[in-house]
């Protein structure tokens, strides 16, 4: 059996098509790290401009308010209002002005030098803001801070900044920052749900059909082993090949991003949006308001995603190799199977987080968003899906084994 696995391994390794597919994936992963850098810089620039504008607007508003009060009561110091108005009014002024500048200010990452002081200051302001909102001290004319969604968002932000300050982690400017850890997380969450089924189908889909077309399958069929031994050998070699190839691609992407853009913090927080079943790198502003958010270290999230992706790779390889063994034309295998297995991933990518429902909401488990489900729906859901995968694998094994033994199978 081991020698048959080695034979199939050699075939996979020397197959031009396979090398081309993996080469393209590697190139995509390398290029994306530089594209993300460009994207990140663009977003930061845009947010900086918005911040500058909002600060100017805020100051103008503040002056207008000050003028309003000074018109009413003479002798007021427009900078402090101290000693003239009751304390309650003073608080209102403070919360209101801070809110306007703060929301936009949060869009811009803290400066790398002195980020800790800024984070602490922001944390203080946020806590004040939260208190003001809870006590109803914020004036109603400020529409941005009057509903519960904003309170939730504020709470999420406070916990994020607490996490950053507590762990001494420099915050990301945006979620696209191409440092090694966030980049690996980005690849697993956005590129791999589509790339994984595509690569598995294109590499493994024709592992029998191409040999049937070429005639080389007869060499396999004459080897004195049981028929399903041939199937198992091919399956094992294909799984190992896919698994190691993807590991090399991910590893190269991780190292390249690390060498060019820095590795970043392994315990950088990942936001887990429970209510919509979604994960994202926590940048300075949570991406969705009004949902329960938790934070977990990125390295832990990556590790668990890799484990579940490994299981899914096995699941997918078993399905693709088994179905592929009944197809006699290589072209059919490499067109029908990718369409079949990437369709759910396409659906998933098209569906907005939070708008997935029914079956679509279960697809993430199989297509790289496994951790989303784990956090969003609880562990039972994951075990249920893992069991479903195991049952499907067992069924496919049984059907293939019977077919392999009793039918003409591939010839």
């Amino acid at each position: 059996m081991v020698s048959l696995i080695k034979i199939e391994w050699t075939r996979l390794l020397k197959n031009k098509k396979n090398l081309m597919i993996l080469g393209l994936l590697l190139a995509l992963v390398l290029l994306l790290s530089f594209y993300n850098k460009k994207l990140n810089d663009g977003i930061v620039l845009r947010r900086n401009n918005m911040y500058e504008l909002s600060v100017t607007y805020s100051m103008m508003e503040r002056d207008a308010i000050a003028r309003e009060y000074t018109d009413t009561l003479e002798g007021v110091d427009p900078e402090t209002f101290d000693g003239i108005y009751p304390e309650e009014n003073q608080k209102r002024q403070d919360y209101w002005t801070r809110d306007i500048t703060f929301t936009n200010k949060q869009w811009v990452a803290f400066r790398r030098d002195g980020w800790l002081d800024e984070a602490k200051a922001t944390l203080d302001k946020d806590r004040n803001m939260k208190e003001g909102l809870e006590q109803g001290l914020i004036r109603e004319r400020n529409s941005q801070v009057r509903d519960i969604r904003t309170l939730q968002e504020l709470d999420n932000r406070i916990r994020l900044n607490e996490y950053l300050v507590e762990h001494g982690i420099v915050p990301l400017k945006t979620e696209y920052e191409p440092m090694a850890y966030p980049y690996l997380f980005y690849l697993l969450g956005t590129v791999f749900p589509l790339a994984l089924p595509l690569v598995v189908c294109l590499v493994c889909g024709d592992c029998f059909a191409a040999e049937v077309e070429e005639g080389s399958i007869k060499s396999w069929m004459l080897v004195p082993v049981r028929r399903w031994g041939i199937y198992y050998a091919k399956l094992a070699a294909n799984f190992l090949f896919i698994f190691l190839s993807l590991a090399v691609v991910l590893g190269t992407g991780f190292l390249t991003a690390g060498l060019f853009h820095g590795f970043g913090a392994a315990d950088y927080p990942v936001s887990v949006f429970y209510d919509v079943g979604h994960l994202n790198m926590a940048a300075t502003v949570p991406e969705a308001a009004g949902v329960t958010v938790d934070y977990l270290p990125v390295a832990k999230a990556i590790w668990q995603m890799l484990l579940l992706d490994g299981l899914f790779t096995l699941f997918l390889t078993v399905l693709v190799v088994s179905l592929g063994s009944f197809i006699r034309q290589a072209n059919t295998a490499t067109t029908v199977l990718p369409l079949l297995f990437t369709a759910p991933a396409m659906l998933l990518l098209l569906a907005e987080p939070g708008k997935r429902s029914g079956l679509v909401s279960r697809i993430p488990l199989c297509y790289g968003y496994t951790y989303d489900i784990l956090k969003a729906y609880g562990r039972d859901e994951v075990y249920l899906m893992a069991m479903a995968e195991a049952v499907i694998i067992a069924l496919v094994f049984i059907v293939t084994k019977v077919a392999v033994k009793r039918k003409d199978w591939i010839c």
Partner: protein
Amino acid sequence: MKILEVEHVTKSFRKKKVIDGISFSVGEGKVVGFVGPNGAGKTTTLKLVTNILIPDSGSIHIAGFNILKEREKALANVAGVIENPALYMELSGYDNLRFIQRAYGKSKSDMEQVIEMIGLGHAMRQKTGRYSLGMKQRLGLGMALLADPKFLILDEPTNGLDASGIIELRALICRKAKEGTTVLLSSHILSEVDRIADEVVFIKDGKIVEESAMPPLRKKYLVKAGDAKGVLGQLASIRDAEAVLVNDTTVEFRVGAGDFAKAMRLVCQEEYQVQDIQQEGTQLEHVYQDIFREDA
């Protein structure tokens, strides 16, 4: 001892019966020709024998092992080239041989010997996709030989081979047969089967129509001579020769390869005024024509 026993095997493709209850056997150490017209079911039979296809009914035993129940034991005795050489076109000749070397646990020195035997040492690093048909055939044969089987199955092994390739192949099969390897040889070239085979199995429309031991090689010759009767008299002194007077100047005779020189010595004497001697096909060709007259 029979190395191959096929009993009442049938096989249908989409309700069309292509093999219809065939039974035949191959004795150990024999070279058996498997002969039939195109579409008779030769390759399908060989695929059934090697378990590439599974029969609808009947049983196949190789070296006493049922191919369906004890596949690994049965196939441990078999290697061959079925239909065309099973090669990976993107891999080199060397890598293709490595397939068999690994699958059958053979040593590298075994591989070197086979490379030398098939005469492809110069092309071992080339991709087999660039090989000529003859080179592919040689490599396929090499792969079968590397497995060192007791039972060698060759389906149209002379396809694409040049004259020297055919001569080498013939010598190789004879050598293997002497070493005790059983060979089942399917070929359209009857003269090749005629030269090599000990027995012949004829198949037509998925049925075995004749299974018989080959008589010693007996070719038909036409002798034109002034004294044809004299020639006839001389040939009558050879025990296994069959001679017939066609007309006053022509004698038709059949003689085994071993007696051919003797026949020539007796016939080619001045007094008989021999003008011409022509070879007229083999006995197998005549048998073939008799059996497959409708197809012809």
